[in-house]
């Protein structure tokens, strides 16, 4: 056996300072929580925001470095930075949404903000993971914190139920993921992504251990990104969780899972692409179709957005199944970026109507919203149109890139199914817009001027949706560049995708 050599651990402050900033922030929140009354817990939220800002600034130093630290355990590349920046923004907006909501819903307390910060820490680890152990640790740091957050309204039976279902299926899927990691380790002799790639590429015969490991990993990640048929927990967890946490799960958790998923499959398992691409094809078709069809009949908006999130994971999988080139991979990254801002904006409006104790999360509650609150209704309409894929919004550009990439790769049938699904999805997204603008009714919504954190979150989400839709080139360039950096090759065709 090779002895463990501690003198050559290849220490790098650059790689871990953002993580240290976040964990210090979380610990400070927990310590400060013993001195702060629950009514003043918004101050604790600001500590997390400061830690996130520090993590963001420290992450920016990693931009363009494209190296690895800790003997390859952590990647310091543009791919990691791309996901870390989106995750940090999504977490910051979640905290901003929570500042007023937490007090209203009785979620106040240091644990709430500390758990959000620890979850974000796990997500950053997943984005930067260079080996399978780090992916596992990041995933669990994130998941365990989010299990607790989903059940944070302790007296609410729905929140309890969301937490237990999310926990049981999450832990169940972790078992599969871990078994996949074990088999992959046994088949290739390493847990480093680069070493696994080299070992698989050099192999001539197909190893059954390897294929079994691949299948287990697909099941594990299928659960984490909520692809059909591994989606059963999603609607329940999204509906029952506190609404800002639903936004957190739909955006940050999903992006972190995709960050790990894409990294493993494109940097170390890509020699097996002929094996996994058809599986992703099937998962994409099932996720899009089941997600959109079941969303049609939902009456609760959180549940509808949960099925919509499943469908959108399907669209991202379309790009992944087809991604045999780096433009296609870049398109998936751009898709996730657009999805993140759109979902944050939409869930921000859901938080605005949901006042914790008296939950107004039925689609009927949105009737007449445009008359009393034209700003909120307009923000919701923009986000829903973006989710549908209406130009010139972010969702349209993202779908265009993904579908174009899939067509280029020869996946015509898959693209036809995806486009048909987009048409179906228009029905339920537009249904909410019709309710807001053309129906009478409505519930009392507290003035937004008293909720600046929420207002800023919605504004950032909507601004992102419009900016990514009208002027996509720099962001698409960043996405293609990020994907190329994960592959360790320069972006050769970064321009060819741009219209």
């Amino acid at each position, binding site marked *: 056996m090779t002895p463990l050599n501690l003198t050559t651990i290849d220490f790098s402050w650059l790689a871990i300072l953002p993580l240290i900033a976040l964990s210090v922030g979380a610990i400070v929140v927990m310590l400060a929580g013993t001195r702060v009354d629950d009514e003043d817990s918004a101050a604790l939220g600001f500590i997390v925001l400061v830690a996130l800002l520090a993590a963001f600034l420290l992450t920016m130093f990693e931009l363009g470095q494209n190296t690895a630290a800790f003997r390859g355990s952590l990647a310091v590349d543009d791919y990691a930075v791309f996901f870390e920046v989106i995750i940090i923004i999504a977490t910051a907006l979640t905290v901003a949404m929570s500042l007023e909501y937490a007090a209203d819903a009785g979620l106040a307390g240091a644990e709430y903000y500390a758990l959000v910060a620890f979850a974000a820490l796990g997500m950053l680890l997943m984005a930067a993971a260079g080996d399978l152990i780090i992916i596992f*640790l990041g995933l669990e740091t994130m998941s*365990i914190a989010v299990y*607790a957050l989903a059940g944070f309204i302790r007296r609410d*039976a729905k929140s309890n139920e*969301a937490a237990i279902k999310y926990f049981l299926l999450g832990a169940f899927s972790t078992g599969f993921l871990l078994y996949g990691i074990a088999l992959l380790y046994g088949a290739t002799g390493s847990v480093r992504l680069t070493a696994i790639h080299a070992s698989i590429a050099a192999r001539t015969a197909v190893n059954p251990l390897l294929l079994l490991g691949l299948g287990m990993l697909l099941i594990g990640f299928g659960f984490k990104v909520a692809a059909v048929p591994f989606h059963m927990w999603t609607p*329940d967890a999204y509906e029952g969780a506190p609404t800002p946490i639903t936004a957190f799960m739909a955006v940050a958790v999903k992006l972190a899972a995709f960050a790990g998923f894409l990294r493993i499959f494109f940097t170390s398992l890509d020699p097996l692409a002929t094996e996994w691409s058809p599986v992703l094809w099937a998962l994409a078709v099932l996720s899009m179709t089941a997600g959109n069809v079941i969303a049609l009949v939902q009456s609760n908006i959180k549940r509808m957005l949960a099925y919509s999130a499943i469908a959108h994971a399907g669209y991202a999988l379309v790009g992944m199944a087809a991604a045999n080139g780096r433009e296609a991979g870049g398109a998936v990254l751009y898709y996730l970026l657009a999805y993140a801002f759109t979902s944050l904006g939409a869930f921000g409006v859901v938080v605005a109507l949901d006042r914790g104790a008296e939950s107004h999360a039925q689609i009927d509650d949105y009737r007449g919203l445009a008359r009393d609150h034209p700003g909120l209704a307009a923000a919701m309409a923009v986000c829903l149109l973006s989710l549908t894929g209406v130009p010139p919004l972010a969702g349209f550009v993202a779908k265009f890139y993904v579908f174009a990439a899939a067509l280029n790769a020869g996946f015509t049938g898959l693209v036809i199914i995806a486009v048909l699904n987009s048409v179906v999805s228009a029905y339920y997204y537009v249904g909410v817009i019709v309710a807001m603008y053309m129906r009478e009714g409505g519930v009392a919504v507290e003035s937004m001027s008293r909720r600046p954190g929420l207002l800023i979150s919605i504004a950032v989400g909507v601004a992102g949706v419009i900016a990514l839709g009208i002027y996509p080139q720099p962001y698409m360039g960043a996405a293609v560049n990020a994907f190329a950096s994960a592959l360790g090759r320069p972006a050769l065709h970064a321009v060819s995708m741009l219209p």
Partner: protein
Amino acid sequence: MTPISYFLVLSALLFAIGVLGVLIRRNVIVMLMSIELMLNAVNLAFIALGRQVGSIDGQVIVFFVITVAAAEAAVGLGIVIAVFRNRATVNADELNLLRW
């Protein structure tokens, strides 16, 4: 020396028992135990495979998995207690407020 396949088959069997336990049993605590069984089956596979490929990584991972499993059990039992206080049941079939 015992061939590696013995360990891998044992690990696969334990894992399968764990999966079946989660799928068949309806008591949330028994489901939690079954998940722990799955994770320990993986630990066995890690140790056996680590021995076979001749690197220490497999044994190091097991420590991480044990730690994570402990944290997961702590959070999971906490959630079970919260559910039991509100609903006075730990039967998965009776937790049906959220559906469709």
